[in-house]
């Protein structure tokens, strides 16, 4: 068996050895282990606030994952990715409030509609390259968010409030989205599955082709591949991931508002990815977890929390250009080289 990613096998099976062999995979397991540990502690303390905050961090982590798929893997900077996040949130809220209060129905409708909207927006945006793609992505999100902001049927600037909290049925048992611990675990598993799917895809020829497009798009056609198709599939996939993550938002908060599509949300997701480690996927979740909590905690002290986040972002870009995960992986590799 050949495996492109396997380094020469180290004899030891200790935790550090495993970390050094598949650092990103190990850090991914660590993320979900830490999340479970948090759930255990918060559950024992009967906490509500931090459960809700951590759930929100995971939901925005899903959006950040979709940004990293485009930015870190395909080389496309999506300045308006919140469009799909907000779209998923609105569709989910509409289904829950005016259709059936069913988690599965909401998710299915969001999956189908984000595929269609992603295809449409992708066909428009993927035509452009580099900064023009970024600007078209930004422009599309601006147009749609302003339209929603001015549409009375969608609640205009108030958004949709009073979204019923669904019971999420799994046949044998069900989870109440109103339960802080239950919904946190559900979102953790859901985001975990999205992460796992993307991480798997990145190890296939499809995922590797995206990396080829990122590093040298001009050579790709001469290898018999149409880069446009691959970029479109990545774009739709990112729309799905962002939309499905957004669909969880009204289940957590009971409302949606046009702000979910604003540049602030897109920008925050990009910052999460860069601080977490661009192109690592798991860095998007780490970045979202750390920064969402920071935004909230600093926000309780000062209304100028964006200022603090901005400074953190600059420090990160200057001193840790590969982000948290990139820094840890590089440090592990240095240790491996110096180890006997």
């Amino acid at each position, binding site marked *: 068996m050949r495996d492109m990613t396997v380094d020469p096998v180290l004899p030891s099976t200790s935790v550090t050895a495993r970390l050094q062999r598949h650092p990103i995979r190990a850090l991914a397991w660590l993320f979900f282990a830490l999340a479970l540990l948090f759930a255990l502690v918060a559950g024992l303390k009967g906490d509500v606030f931090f459960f809700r905050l951590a759930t929100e961090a995971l939901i925005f982590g899903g959006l950040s994952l979709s940004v990293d798929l485009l930015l870190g893997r395909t080389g496309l900077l999506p300045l308006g990715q919140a469009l799909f996040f907000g779209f998923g949130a609105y569709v989910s809220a509409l289904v829950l409030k005016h259709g059936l209060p069913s988690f599965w129905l909401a998710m299915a409708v969001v999956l189908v509609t984000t595929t269609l909207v992603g295809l449409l927006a992708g066909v428009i945006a993927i035509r452009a390259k580099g900064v023009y793609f970024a600007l078209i992505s930004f422009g599309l999100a601006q147009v749609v968010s302003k339209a929603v902001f001015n549409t009375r049927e969608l609640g205009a600037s108030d958004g949709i409030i009073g979204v019923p909290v669904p019971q999420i049925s799994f046949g044998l048992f069900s989870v109440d989205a109103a339960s802080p611990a239950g919904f946190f675990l559900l979102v953790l598993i859901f985001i975990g599955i999205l992460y796992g799917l993307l991480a798997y895809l990145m190890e*296939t*020829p*499809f995922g590797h*082709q995206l*990396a080829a497009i990122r590093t040298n798009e001009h050579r790709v056609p001469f290898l*018999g591949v149409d880069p446009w198709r691959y970029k479109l599939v990545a774009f739709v996939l990112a729309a799905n991931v962002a939309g499905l993550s957004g669909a969880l938002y009204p289940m957590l908060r009971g409302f949606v508002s046009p702000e979910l599509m604003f540049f602030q949300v897109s920008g925050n997701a990009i910052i999460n990815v860069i601080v977490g480690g661009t192109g690592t996927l798991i860095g998007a979740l780490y970045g979202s977890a750390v920064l969402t909590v920071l935004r909230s905690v600093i926000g309780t002290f000062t209304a100028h929390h964006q200022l603090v986040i901005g400074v953190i972002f600059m420090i990160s870009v200057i001193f840790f250009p590969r982000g948290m995960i990139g820094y840890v992986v590089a440090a592990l590799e240095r240790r491996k080289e110096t180890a006997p």
Partner: protein
Amino acid sequence: MSAIHQVPTSVPADAILSVSDITVRFGSLVAVDGVSFQAQRGHITSVIGPNGAGKSTLFNLISGAIEPSAGRVIFDGQDLTGLPPNRMLAAGLARSFQITNLFFELPVRENLRLAAQFLEHGRGLLRPVGSSRVALQRVDELVERFRLEHKLNELAGFLSHGEQRRLEIAVALAARPRMLLLDEPTQGMSHADTQETGEMIRGLAAESLSILLVEHDVDLVMSLSDHVVVMHQGGKLAEGTPQQVRGNPAVQSAYFGDAFHA
């Protein structure tokens, strides 16, 4: 217009590539002006000419990088005129680049694997890379042939110039094309490396691969080629065997210039 259809007539059975009256204009500039020639199957056909003669543009027209304003490119019975580059490989035509054009941030092995993935015909696109056995076997062959065994996990950007040029050709060959377009393969090479590359090209032709070569090194072209096309100011000046071309007075004055009259 983009459909590949069979062209049964007028192309001799032994011509794998037939270019007729190919022309491209950039605004008022006619970069390539009504050039016609044929390349025979299993032969080395070379295009030479002074700087700015339109060699590279001709190359880009054949490989689909530039769409022609007029003329036809017939390859192995298929009309390739105006097809995008990503359709050329399916027809059996591959090219290398004058300025090394690799995935510099990716390892050597991955550069070759990406190129060899074509051999899987879209199979295993959503399975782990390790299950693309045909592609990986091809990578092993290329690595051995182009002596890159010790550089497999090296990033392509960290290779020496000579190694990058070898990898460039290996990548172009990975999908087993029937014809290889080589754009100045010895660009920037030492004399020894140039000789070695010449041997390698000869070896490829011996395996009945058809080769179209654009090259600056006239001595190399003359020693390698079965057929030489001389370009000058966007048009075809002459063609023939290396001896015929060398003896052509028009070629001597336009191209070899001082070297022949000195």
